[in-house]
Structure formats: C-alpha cells, structure tokens
C-alpha cells in the first residue's frame, strides 16, 4: 500500500464484539453520554480477552439503568430484582463453581437496597466479580439522591443538596473482606478493562467501582452539562494510586472541584474463596 494513497473509511453495521452482545437489541435504551454502555462494552471485551469459554461466563444484574447491563450481553444473563443480584449470583456461583459469574449493577442497587448482600458476599469471599457502576444517583427513576451522592449535590429528593455522607466504597469493600478492590472511571477504560480481567482470573470476591456519567439526571441537576463534561472532570481530577495507602482518603467529592479523586487497583490479596 502506498502511503500517498488516501484511505477510504468504510461504513459498518456490525461491531467486532457484537457476538458477545445481544446486538439485535442495540441501540440500547440508555441516554446519550451515559457511561453504562462503556461498561457493557468493557465487560464484553474482557470476556473476549479472558481466554475462557464464553459459556463459562454468566452476568447477573439488579434493577435500574445499570441493571439493564445483563440484558445486552450475550452470555447466560439474569436481570433480577432490586438489590438481589448478589445473592442470586451467589446461588449460581456456589452451585456451579466453575462458572465465572460477574455482577454488573448500579450504586443504588448494590449499595443502597443491596448493601447487606454486598458486605456479606465480601465477608464470605463469595466467588463473584462485582462491577458497581457509580453514577451518583438513581437514574432510571429520575435522579433521586442515593448513598453515593456527594454531599451538597442535588437530586430530585434533595432539591437543596444532600447532607448525607456518601459511602467510601473501596473502604467498605476492603473492611468487609474483598480480595480485589479497584476504582476506575469509564474514561480510564483500558485500566478498567484490565481490572475486570483481573477479577475474572481471581477466585473470591472482587469489587470494582467504576464512575460513570448520568448526564440526564445527575448531570442536569448538578450543572454538569453532558456526559463529556463529567468525563472532563474525571480527566482533570483523577489521580491514580495503586494499593492506596490510606483508604479514608478515597472519599469522592465530585462537587468541590479542588478535590482530587483517587482511582487505581487498591487491594489484591489472596484468601480462600467461599464454597468454590
């Protein structure tokens, strides 16, 4: 090929990763600039790179926008009730320990209504990979605040800004016993994907928090113009610190733009996995 020859860019109607997606359901229902699609994409990519048979992967979700993830990935997939993705997945993982079970769900589903199952699955070291998509609010019901909403941020149930402290999720996961704990944003898509791969390779409870924009609800309520704007916040304020030295410093304040957001792979230890 001559360098002077001008490249012609073809149109397409299939994506190379489509076989790992329920492509007949695309475009998905998620909003423009929503980060959940990138998580779905990254999970599919990680499956492809995992070297494990596709049929050994199982995806379980709860309820909410993030909970729709299970409906778009072309592996055995279960879209359960609100907050119950983890025990449902535990049932699968305990009965068929050779399956690689990944739970993809939202911050509200996993840490509000599902919080008890989260701490107990971590404590037991259930053989699950958890991807917790944190978009700082309840998106599907229209932008209510939740246990990850930063202090001062607004939502439809906190019109003057929430006063409740949000969870520091990596700290919670570590304190309850997770063997792999990471936080990334969807802008850190390569690192995030590697973290998913690592969780697939590990036995035991792996917890990945991934920050993702919800422009329609959280963004609009908090003067974050669109998904790109939130991505820019990630770009400007994220600081990578693998194996974080002080978990108390991992609090996220998305509103105060002077504060940095720490991301990285924070914990990677070995401990016997639960009934696996």
């Amino acid at each position, binding site marked *: *090929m001559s*360098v002077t020859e*001008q*490249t*012609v*860019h*073809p*149109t*397409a*109607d*299939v*994506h*190379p*990763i*489509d076989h790992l*997606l329920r*492509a007949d359901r*695309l*475009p*998905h229902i*998620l*909003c*423009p*600039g*929503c*980060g*959940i*699609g*990138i998580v*779905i*994409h*990254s999970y599919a*990519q990680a499956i492809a790179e995992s070297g494990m048979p596709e049929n050994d992967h199982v995806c379980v979700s709860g309820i909410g926008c993030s909970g729709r993830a299970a409906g778009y990935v072309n592996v055995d997939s279960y879209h359960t009730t609100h907050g119950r993705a983890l025990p449902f997945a535990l049932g699968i993982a305990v009965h068929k320990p050779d399956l690689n079970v990944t739970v993809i769900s939202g911050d509200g589903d996993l840490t509000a209504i599902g919080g008890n199952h989260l701490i107990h699955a971590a404590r037991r070291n259930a053989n699950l990979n958890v991807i917790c998509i944190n978009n700082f609010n309840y998106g599907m019901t229209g932008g209510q605040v939740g246990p990850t909403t930063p202090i001062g941020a607004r939502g439809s149930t906190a019109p003057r800004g929430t006063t409740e402290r949000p969870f520091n999720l990596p700290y919670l996961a570590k304190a309850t016993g997770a063997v792999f704990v990471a936080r990334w944003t*969807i*802008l850190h*898509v*390569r690192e995030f*994907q590697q973290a998913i791969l690592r969780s697939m390779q590990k036995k035991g409870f792996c917890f990945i928090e991934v920050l993702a924009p919800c422009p329609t609800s959280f963004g609009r309520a908090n003067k974050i113009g*669109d*998904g*790109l704007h939130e*991505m820019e916040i990630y770009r400007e304020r994220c600081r990578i610190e693998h194996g974080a030295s002080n978990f108390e410093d991992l609090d996220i304040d998305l509103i105060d733009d002077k504060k940095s957001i720490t991301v990285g792979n924070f914990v990677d230890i070995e401990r016997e996995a639960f009934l696996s």
Partner: protein
Amino acid sequence: MDLSLAQVPRGLVHVIAERCKECNFCINYCPTDVLEYSTEINAKGYHYPVVAEGKEDACIQCRFCDLICPELAIYTTDASATQSKERDAG
C-alpha cells in the same frame, strides 16, 4: 532504538451510524482529531462521527474511540491489513 524506523500503525474507522447517540466521546478523545460530526442525522436524529476532511490518514489505530464508545457504534481496523485483504479479495 531508532524512532524514525518505528512504524506508526494506520487505522480504518468503521462507524455504525444508526447506533450513535452523539455523546461526543470519540470525537473529543481521539488523540489525532480524526473525527468530526456528520452533517446528516441518523434515524434517531443524532449526528454521528465521520472522518474529518484531511484526516483520512490520521488514525493511528489506538482503538480508544472504540473502547470509549457507549453505543458499540465505532471501531477501527488496521488499514494495511484490511486494505491488503480487500485488495487480495478484489
């Protein structure tokens, strides 16, 4: 290492226009500014990415537009590999 010998890969950009929702991620985060909005809209009313004029050879196949796309609406392939193949087939 002689950097002048390092070959920069070149990529072909594939866009699945009907999936796009105009989030701007691919356009904004392309390290070589290959992409711009289409003038046309898709069935949902969105402007999708197209290769900007004069940028036809600028794609370095870093795959970031692919990975960062929430809609599975864009990907790149190795231009030499693809076009060679096409030529072979043609």
